[in-house]
């Protein structure tokens, strides 16, 4: 048996905290520097040597980011798209997952695995044909078109996530309600939805995060500046004000606020969603 004296253990713990702190500084440092730059007057954003505490500090970048360039409009567009996507994705994925989990019908396995193809085909690769399809359906250059494509794109992952959850729910509850004469719709609403709140929350959170941050499709399908969502607007900002980093970061941080809020409030769900494979590839 190894000798783990209390002293040795304490030294080890300190070493581990030291290593983690160093890592955390590397992870968080860039964000802190971004926050610092966002409070600097523009002429000091490119100063050498860099100053970490802005002096003089100013909120001018935030005021300008919010009031100029229709930023409020872009923010509203993003809210609309993200909320629409969240509600529709969660609802349709829950319905599909319920169908897969609790009904036997011909072709069930085939349909399920066809849908799982969606997990393997990465986004940008099918941007070209998606654009062609969207155009023939008159869904380019519109916010509802964005929602439509986000919901369809999220169907595979969220159905997969929710089906797993529904299948683990005890069948006895379902059967008991059935004996009471409750039809499939009522069981879905009064039994499956309430009991799967944690999974629904995970699904909703990732639908929200995914659509709030999505850039490639929005950038491809939206031309009209009135319909920009925040990621396009922020990237454009950088293009237009190449050296106004304070402004770009103020806009970025305003855009990050809902994401951080959702993350802190639903941390448990975020972690469980990440474990299932959300947000990657």
């Amino acid at each position, binding site marked *: 048996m190894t000798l783990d004296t209390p002293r040795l253990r304490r030294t080890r713990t300190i070493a581990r905290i030291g290593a983690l702190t160093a890592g955390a500084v590397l992870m968080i440092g860039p964000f802190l520097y971004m926050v610092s730059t966002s409070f600097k007057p523009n002429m000091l954003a490119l100063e050498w040597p860099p100053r970490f505490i802005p002096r003089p500090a100013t909120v001018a970048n935030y005021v300008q980011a919010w009031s100029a360039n229709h930023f409020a409009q872009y923010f509203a567009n993003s809210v609309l798209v993200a909320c629409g996507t969240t509600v529709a994705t969660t609802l349709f994925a829950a319905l599909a997952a319920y169908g897969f989990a609790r009904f036997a019908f011909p072709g069930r396995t085939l349909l399920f695995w066809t849908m799982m193809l969606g997990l393997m085909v990465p986004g940008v690769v099918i941007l*070209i044909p998606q654009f062609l*399809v969207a155009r023939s359906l008159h869904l380019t250059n519109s916010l509802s078109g964005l929602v439509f494509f986000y919901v369809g794109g999220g*169907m595979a992952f969220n159905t997969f996530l929710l089906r797993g959850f529904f299948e683990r729910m005890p069948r006895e509850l379902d059967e008991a309600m059935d004996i009471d004469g409750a039809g499939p719709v009522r069981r879905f609403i009064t039994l499956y939805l309430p009991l799967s709140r944690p999974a629904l929350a995970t699904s909703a959170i990732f639908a929200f995060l995914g659509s709030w941050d999505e850039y490639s499709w929005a950038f491809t399908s939206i031309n009209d500046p009135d319909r920009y969502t925040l990621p396009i607007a922020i*990237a454009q900002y950088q293009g237009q004000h190449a050296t106004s980093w304070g402004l770009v970061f103020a806009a970025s941080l305003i855009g990050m606020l809902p994401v951080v809020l959702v993350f802190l409030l639903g941390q448990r769900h975020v972690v469980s969603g990440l474990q299932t494979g959300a*947000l990657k590839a």
Partner: protein
Amino acid sequence: MAVQTVVAPRRDSAGEPTPEVTKRRRRWRSGWAGYVFLAPGFALFVVVLLIPIARAVQVSFYQWLPFPGADNTFVGLDNYTRAVADPQFRLGLVNAIVYMLVTVPGQILLGLGVALLLHQRLPGRSLFRVLFYLPVITSWVVVSLLFRYLFATDSGLVNWVLVDVLHVAGHPVGWLDSRWTGIGALSILGIWKGVGWTAVILLAGMTGVPRELHESAAVDGAGYFRRTWHVTLPALRRTLLFLSVMLVIGGFNVFISVLLMTAGGPAGETEMPLTYLYKQAFNFLEFGYGSAIAVIMTVLILILSIGQTLIANRAERGE
């Protein structure tokens, strides 16, 4: 039965299902209801993913112009032979492979380190987790712009640290002005953003390692590092396989960071396959050629994923 009465207290007459009820249940269970629940979501999936996948293959055989009523000519495999011979596409492919060779091991090793450190009880553990996950949930657009700022030649924080703090560089490095330094900067961003994710996945895998294995190894006199090597890592084999497959796919799909940090420049030197296909389609309106590249990339990714899985399975059986 006990479960039923707890959760569904409204029910007052319990009892075994009668044959009649069982029959009724079986009828709707196997009938149309499943399709009805499935329909809206599946229809969306078909329009947004399935049809475009088929369409990509179709378009790749054409000289395709994205104008209404355009005269699209069938060119067979021309777009594919063109891609294979295209030096810019090949350069992009080499860039993506280098990016992958750096970021996949980088994310796995560092993520493993973080996961091992976070796995045991530790003061402030949940705070550390939040800090490591923050880059994961932040949008690619924001972190790409941020890293472009950090890697700026004359005023970037990275050059300041290298020149003025560590004195390892005599003068500022033009990170985004040449091929390999540019891919280096992109790789650092990729690793930085992904470490938290690999750590989450590995932590989830570690909770599945039986405690007794560790304890009996400790009784046998194995120290922490030997236990990690002989107990933890073998138990994580499937997790590591999953991670490497996902990260290889992710590496080939590097896109937004390239677009916003280097835009493929200078002179296409840091172009990646996806940025190249994007430019072909949406800047030069070569939809057919872009689609051929997309199909090649998809097939390549599929082969790599299946190959990795087969190799890992064979290694497992060989032991």
